[in-house]
């Protein structure tokens, strides 16, 4: 074989090998890895979210952005993310409310209410699916419609979900609901359609105080990783060993 023939064969060989590999993948029913088509490799990421409790001002924009971005029904029974307000009084009494179920006017009226001297402190806590590393919802799904992606996001395949609602019962955080239109389980996806394109989840994008920090726990220089290093971190219901990837900074012990 002379040099010219070798180069000609090599030029043919490499693309042909690629085609053959793709065909064999298809024959085995496997999908081509995302990196082969879009340059995105799931195995290189492990997503999480940091919540800086002190920074949340309870403006509810994240909730509205989430509903708009993800077609979440407007009615106050369906939320992929919501905001809770904790009011702690001098006598130790704790009141918790979900401000996201209130109307905008209702929230404004509360903001303008006179200061109650018995209140020691109040704070807001954004809630969403904790994207657990050890998710009980995935464990119980009878048909495998809810699953964890390689990059650590728990998703629901709405074409496969049978609507038995076992996952809703198994979630300790109340993060799931049955979508009344699709009749399938619904939950936060970390805006998977956005983050796999390098964008931020809608709730993070609109937060005016940067109370939500989205990031990749596999990337050492990531903002979320730095946030975790710099703050005392807690997760919700750690005793259940769900290993949440939503990490709260300066979380009060009253929050469940």
């Amino acid at each position, binding site marked *: 074989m002379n040099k010219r023939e070798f180069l000609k064969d090599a030029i043919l060989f490499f693309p042909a090998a690629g085609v053959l590999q793709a065909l064999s993948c298809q024959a085995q029913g496997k999908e081509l890895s995302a990196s082969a088509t879009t340059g995105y490799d799931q195995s290189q990421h492990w997503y999480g979210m940091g919540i800086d409790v002190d920074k949340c001002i309870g403006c509810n924009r994240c909730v509205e952005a989430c509903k708009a971005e993800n077609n979440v029904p407007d*009615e106050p029974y369906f939320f992929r993310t919501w905001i809770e307000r904790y009011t702690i009084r001098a006598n130790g009494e704790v009141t918790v409310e979900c401000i996201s179920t209130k109307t905008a006017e209702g929230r404004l009226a509360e903001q303008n209410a006179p200061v109650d001297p018995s209140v020691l402190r109040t704070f807001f806590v954004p809630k969403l699916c904790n994207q657990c590393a050890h998710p009980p919802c995935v464990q*119980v799904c*009878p*048909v495998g419609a809810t699953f964890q992606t390689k990059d650590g996001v728990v998703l629901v395949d709405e074409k496969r979900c*049978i609507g038995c609602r076992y996952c809703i*019962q198994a979630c300790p955080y*109340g993060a799931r609901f049955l979508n009344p*239109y699709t009749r399938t389980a619904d939950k936060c996806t970390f805006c998977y359609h956005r983050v796999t394109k390098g964008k931020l989840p809608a709730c993070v994008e609109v937060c005016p105080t940067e109370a939500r920090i989205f990031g990749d726990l596999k990337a050492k220089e990531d903002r979320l990783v730095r946030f975790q290093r710099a703050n005392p971190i807690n997760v919700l219901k750690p005793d259940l060993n769900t290993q949440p990837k939503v990490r709260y900074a300066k979380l009060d012990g009253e929050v*469940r």
Partner: protein
Amino acid sequence: MSGTVPAGLYEQLAHQLSQVTGFIYPNEVETHWSILIVVYPYLTGIVAGAFILASLVKVFNVVEVQPIYRLALLTALSFMLIAGMPLQLHLGHPERAYEIFMTPQPTSAMAMFGFVYLWYLLGILLIEVWLEYRQQLVLMAQQGHGVMKHVYRALSLYSTDVSPEAVAWDHRASKIVTIIGIPSAFLLHGYVGFIFGSVKANPWWGSVLMPIVFLMSAIVSGIAMVMLVYMVLSLLRQEKLDMRCLDKVGLFLLVAIIVDFALEGLDYIHRIYQSEESIKILGQLVSVRLFTSLVIIQVALGMLLPMLILALVRSKRFNEDMRKLMYFTSVLLIQLGIFSMRWNVVIGGQLFSKSFRGLMAYKMELTGIESLTTALVLLALPFIILTVLHHVLPTRWMEERGIPAH
């Protein structure tokens, strides 16, 4: 968004929201497992309990129970045929239910239940009933006329051999199936308990005792149901009840209900003594939302009172009529109690927030798929099936009914 919102959903949710006390997570307003999921363990429990009663005759040779052996088997089969229906009707996508069998997720308790259910129906109950009736089916096919002749031939699967050897083989095979059937019946209802007991997110459900509590309550409900059916059937036939049989079954029922009470009591004592984080909200749940259905109906009327009556039957010398009345009252109360127990587990577990800070409410719909009407229809269907089965497969031998066998 595709699809339409089920009629009346938002009205139901608005009403339930208005009944909330304290703080709940916003997605918790909806009661995800409705009355149909209450009916499901109630029906399944009767299947397991009735089969275990039948097995007393076959495996443990309790001859006194022989008169209701076939009735117990047919009761188990009738309830089994309907037991899966409430689950099916409850699904958001019933047309995808087959996926549980096609692509089951091995880690899911619910996925595996589909196989346990099928195994019990096809591998145990149908075979057991067929073996029990084969000889009689052949004889009835020989003596029958018209359509029924063909029905009986088909039901006997066109077998014709009624020689003593063949019949002896039937008995041996039936005994083996029953021996496999007992752990299978335990598995069937223990598994239903596991579906709830394994949910760590819900402290009302998540208990290691749940499978065994479900199993014992299943045995109680199954025995009581067969007794009830036997008494009603004898009344309709205007036949004399076999008091020896009734007294024996009554004794088993008393033992079962004592064990059931002890287990449930242990569960409550354990919870109260351990006094974990959830104890305060569970206390509120019982005192505010479940007082009538749990304390009064389930425990006082459905458990303690029948236990007392069944014990009294044994300790004092009552005449037959009085004993019949006492048994009848007990089994009715037990059915009420066990249904309440299923309600208190399934609905009760969804009436407190997983934030442990508030209580929800459940407003049962009167009409629609997940409604009281559907539940009543599902509860009535096993009795209709039992009536039909009882006509096709008589519970007494032909000689007993005055028909010569040959």
